[in-house]
């Protein structure tokens, strides 16, 4: 009666229960946000237990939803507590500013993101570029980035139209959609990172 799925399900629900108990007993808002991330991990464990290709198809939107909600809630927390105006002192470490290590890390993240492609791949590649921009200062052109972001979004929507009305060209549409959403998220996150870097 107790096969692998049942044991796994019981363990994942036990984790979720422990995390929910800690969430109930917690008073501080930022601690609650961290605990909600823990609860999301337990939910992903339950989805991963399905074990077939379907679980991969279910985990990816679950991750996207989780990240979107975390971004929104962290922004609301900063605005509500009035911490938006706090200036974080930059570290002013010479190693970060001069050495090629930041470029290497940013390149690794960008390549990783391009291999993954799609929304999460774009987010990871964008994170690499944000890291690069935060360690050096950005003195570039915002308009080109915004134009690239808009054009790539249009490419993504066009790829979906091709999916629906001309399904024999599906491979072209798939590549177009992946590249479109990748470019869009990279450019959006680079814009965000450049602006964060300017403030701090």
């Amino acid at each position, binding site marked *: 009666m107790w096969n692998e*799925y049942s044991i796994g*399900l019981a363990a*994942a*629900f036990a984790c*979720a229960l422990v995390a*929910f108990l800690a*969430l109930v007993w917690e008073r501080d*808002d930022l601690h*609650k*946000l961290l605990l*909600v991330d823990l*609860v*999301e991990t*337990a*939910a992903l464990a*339950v*989805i991963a*237990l*399905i*074990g077939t290709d*379907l*679980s991969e198809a*279910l985990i990816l*939107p*679950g991750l996207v*939803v*989780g990240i*979107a*909600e*975390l971004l*929104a*809630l962290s*922004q*609301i*927390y900063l*605005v*509500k507590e009035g911490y938006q105006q706090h200036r974080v002192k930059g570290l002013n470490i010479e190693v970060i500013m001069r050495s090629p290590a930041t470029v290497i890390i940013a390149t690794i993240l960008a390549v990783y993101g391009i291999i993954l492609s799609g929304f999460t791949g774009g987010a990871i590649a964008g994170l690499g570029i944000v890291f690069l921009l935060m360690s050096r200062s950005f003195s570039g052109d915002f308009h080109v980035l915004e134009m690239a972001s808009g054009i790539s979004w249009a490419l993504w929507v066009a790829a979906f139209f091709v999916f629906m009305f001309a399904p024999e060209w599906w491979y072209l549409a798939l590549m177009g959609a992946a590249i479109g959403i990748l470019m869009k998220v990279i450019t959006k996150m680079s814009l965000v990172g450049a602006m964060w870097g300017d403030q701090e």
Partner: protein
Amino acid sequence: MNEIGGAPLFFLEFGDIVIYFTPFTLTLFLLALVFSVFVLVSRPERQIDIAFGGDAYYAKEISLSELRFRRFMSIACGLACMGAMVTGDVFDFTLFVSLVGICNVGIVAAVRSRHVQNAAYQYGLVALAGTVPMFAAAAMVAATTGTLSMLELAKGTATVPVAARALLVLGVMGEGMAPFYAAKAEMFRAPGAPYVIMCSLSSLLIFLRVAEVILLI
């Protein structure tokens, strides 16, 4: 098919994922559509506070940028609601409900009042915690019956465990039911009538739809 919402009128098939229109789902869909159009064309109200002890009153103005953002969030909430009303796939339903939760937070997050933002944050935490039982329920349905399509499950050949149905209801309750916790009710103090009403309408429609889903699968 288990005819809980009436005879199906129309099926829109995207391969495996079927969108089905019965009289029940069509009514809910049209309601969400009409209200989204209302949000599109209407202007926000101005909340009026009366100074005690006299006839004086002051009105809260809503700036144009705040109006645009809240209107966009309301329309997105309406679109997500429309999608949730007619979808025939359990996981798509949970995704749409999560989207409604995020949009509800977005509708009130642009208001500058500390009290409203506090309420929006608490609601956002509960909504995020509510996605956990929802996704867990969808995963259990997929693992025990092998399919996520509501039309397949309605034929009754495979039984969905009671725990999965209970978790789905629990998740939807955490995501969008206004009477169940006070934070969502406190969000109503945000000025701007048609945008805030979208929160209430979306939770009502989702409540109706989840009742049908639970009886169907």
